[in-house]
């Protein structure tokens, strides 16, 4: 599937658990989406080209900087990237924070794959709309 350069549709995954990371990459790739994975928030910040990012699947509990902190960082930078948060813990506080900061979804592991895919679609859709609006304004 060809991807238009002005339609960033790459899905970024940040999870410290390698097996979860690999599995998500495999799933999303076979649904036809380009995928990039990172083991920590810091790696994402250093290496990711945010313009490419269509959607971010972010684990809450990471080594140093947590998922919530990264989300807050992106919000602070007015990043348009839609964020889907996942957590293996039963932490409602993090969910509240994430949703308040405008997360596309907060998924508790183990989540339904369909829910993830739906959220991803929603995220990509929002990115597309946001780009279109920006381009439109620009045009």
């Amino acid at each position: 599937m060809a991807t238009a350069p002005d339609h960033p549709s790459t899905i970024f995954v940040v999870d410290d658990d390698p097996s979860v990371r690999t599995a998500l990459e495999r799933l999303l790739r076979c649904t036809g989406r380009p995928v990039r994975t990172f083991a920590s928030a810091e790696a994402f910040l250093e290496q990711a080209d945010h313009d490419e990012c269509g959607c971010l699947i972010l684990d809450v509990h990471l080594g140093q900087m947590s998922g919530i902190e990264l989300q807050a960082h992106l919000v602070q930078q007015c990043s348009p990237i839609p964020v889907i948060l996942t957590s293996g813990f039963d932490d409602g506080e993090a969910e509240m924070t994430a949703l308040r900061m405008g997360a596309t979804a907060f998924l508790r592991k183990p989540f339904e794959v369909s829910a993830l895919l739906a959220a991803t679609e929603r995220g990509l859709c929002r990115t597309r709309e946001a780009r279109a609006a920006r381009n439109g304004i620009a045009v």
Partner: protein
Amino acid sequence: LLTIFLVVLVWSLHARLRNPLTRWWGWAWSASAVFLAVGVVALWIPRDQILLKSSVTLAAVLFGYLHLPLLVFGAVSWRWPAVITGRRALAGISAALAAGALSFAVSRFAPDPITGFAIRHAPRNAGLAICLFVCAWVFFKGARESRSRAAAITGASCLAYAFDQTAYAVTEAMRITGGPQTLLGGTIDVSLLSTARLLAVDLVLICGISVGMILLLVEGHQQAERALLESDRRGRDVAEENAALQAEIRRREDAEQAWRRSEDKLAAAYRSSPCCMAMTTFPEGRFLEINDGFERMTGFSREEVIGRTSLEIGLWADPATRDDWVRTVNAEGRLDGYECVLRGKRGEHISVVYSAEVLTIGGQKCLLGASLDVTALKQIEARHNAILKAIPDWIFLLSRDGVFLECQVRDARDLLMPPAEFIGRHVRDVLPPELAARLIDGFAAALRADQPVSIEYSIPIRDEMRFYEVRAVATDNEQILSLVRDITTQKRAERHARELQDELAHAGRVMALGTLTGSLAHEINQPLTAIMTNAHAAEHLLSSGQAETGEVRAALHDIMSDNRRIGEVLRRLRLLLKKDRREFSTVDINAMVNEVVALVHSHLLGRQIALDVTLGSNLPSVLGDRVQLQQVVLNLLMNATGAVLPTDPESRRLSLTTALDDGQVVVSVTDRGVGASDEQLARMFEPFFTTKSDGMGLGLAISRTIVDAHAGTIGARRNPDRGLTCSFRLPVVALADQPESDVTRLLEMQT
């Protein structure tokens, strides 16, 4: 000729004739020889020298008569040596001489010299004949009794000579009386008798007698020699006996001297003996003499005591005792180790052991007694008895090779068998072989080490397993004192306590895992998520028809591996939640610690706490219960987690180290958290002590119980900069160096 013969005979035998048995013969022969010689001389003297002839004739007659008793003396004294006494011999000799003198006097009135000769000689011949008969009888009797051939010959010669002399006497008598010159109807001419009396006959007969007598002498000599030898032997025996007797006498003399010397010593000993000694009249008990020991023991001085009775001075603690004492002396004649209580001058009671002998001095019955002050011994004995009574243990006294000698048991029914059935028997024959062997080993060790040896054992008594502790110690006289204590109740309490501890530990684990539940869910949710995702991916790949076999296989592989991951988490969890009895085995500390680290990984992750694990290399194994040790590590980590949570994320760093230190394995957890006050530090391991609002304060207390049960130590100290370090130490078991039995014993000891 006869004279010469007799002189030669006497001379040659004079040495033999000194013998008291035969000396009379010597005299007889001598008298005979002198008679014959003097008679011949008298015949030669011419008739005109009347006086000389008469004198010589008288001498011849006297010697002729003298000869008779001497012959008889000789014969009798040969046979019965004691018969011829000096007086009898004198009487016999006097009678013979008187007869000779009479016959000589009568012969002076004879009408012619021939008749005179006959008058002088007829009585002599007759007497000689009688004497010879007597001699013959004596010799024959002797010959028959002593089977002496010499005596028989002598007797026969004497008999023959006697007949010869008889015939001679008859001839002489006929000549004197002038009677018939023939006898037996003219067949025998009297003068023929005279002529028949030839000198040769006399000679032969006398020779016969002499030879017989010589043979007798020889026999006597032989007997004498034998007697001499015998007496020699006896003499030697007597000499030996004598020497022995003299030695005995000397010994007795020495002993007597020594006795005299020792008597002085005895007196000195009596005075200065540490024993209390006294001599009293009996039965009044009036003091005659006392020694210094008496003064020392009773406090009474000599002046206060001598002449008074024991009752007067109030020496008896209980005067009634004295009656029993007197009865005993009367019954047995002495006292031996009589125990009684006296009263000293100051009124103090003195326990004594008293021994006494009854003596009689100057008709007065006395008692010499000595008593030993055993008051101190009695007190010690009483104290020992009280101690022994107070000890609840069974006390056995055994010989050094293991034979029961005595026992003291409060209630003999508790024993395996009544004392009568094992006293005097060997441990081996009384107790089960394995137990007996252990006890004997223990006794040997006690004898060797000279300090108490403790042995624990169990034995079924009346269908109930009971536990005992033996403490064996060697006594001074190399016996074994064995104190046996029934520790069944204690053992049961210990077991009960252990069970409670185990239950508490389990409860602690359940609680600790409860706080971990969220983290453990994370630990499972992660792989579950991966599995679900991979499964969807695979399904998608397959249904979309763009199946890449490699990718599907990779997804399935990941699913399996995540599945195992979940299984591993659950296994750890189940292990910790298991409610088992404590079970000791060798534990690899590092592996055990890693398991706990895996378990708390999510917990720390969820709280943004970093954990540095530093494991010592080549750590030896410890002996312990793996699950309970994990519980301790878990508790320490949870405690540290609680300490760092309130701090900022940069400080949320724990370190866990294992190391070998001074022969012990040390596990430490260091935090850089809030630290603790002195009071908190001191009470950290007490039950229900907590600084957290959500904790019960049991985790560390349970940890301490567990470490104690592992013969280890647990503690906490402040770090130099901040936070605490909690650590526990466990003894190392060098399994390779120890025989199996020792490990088993160690296990028994620790459980």
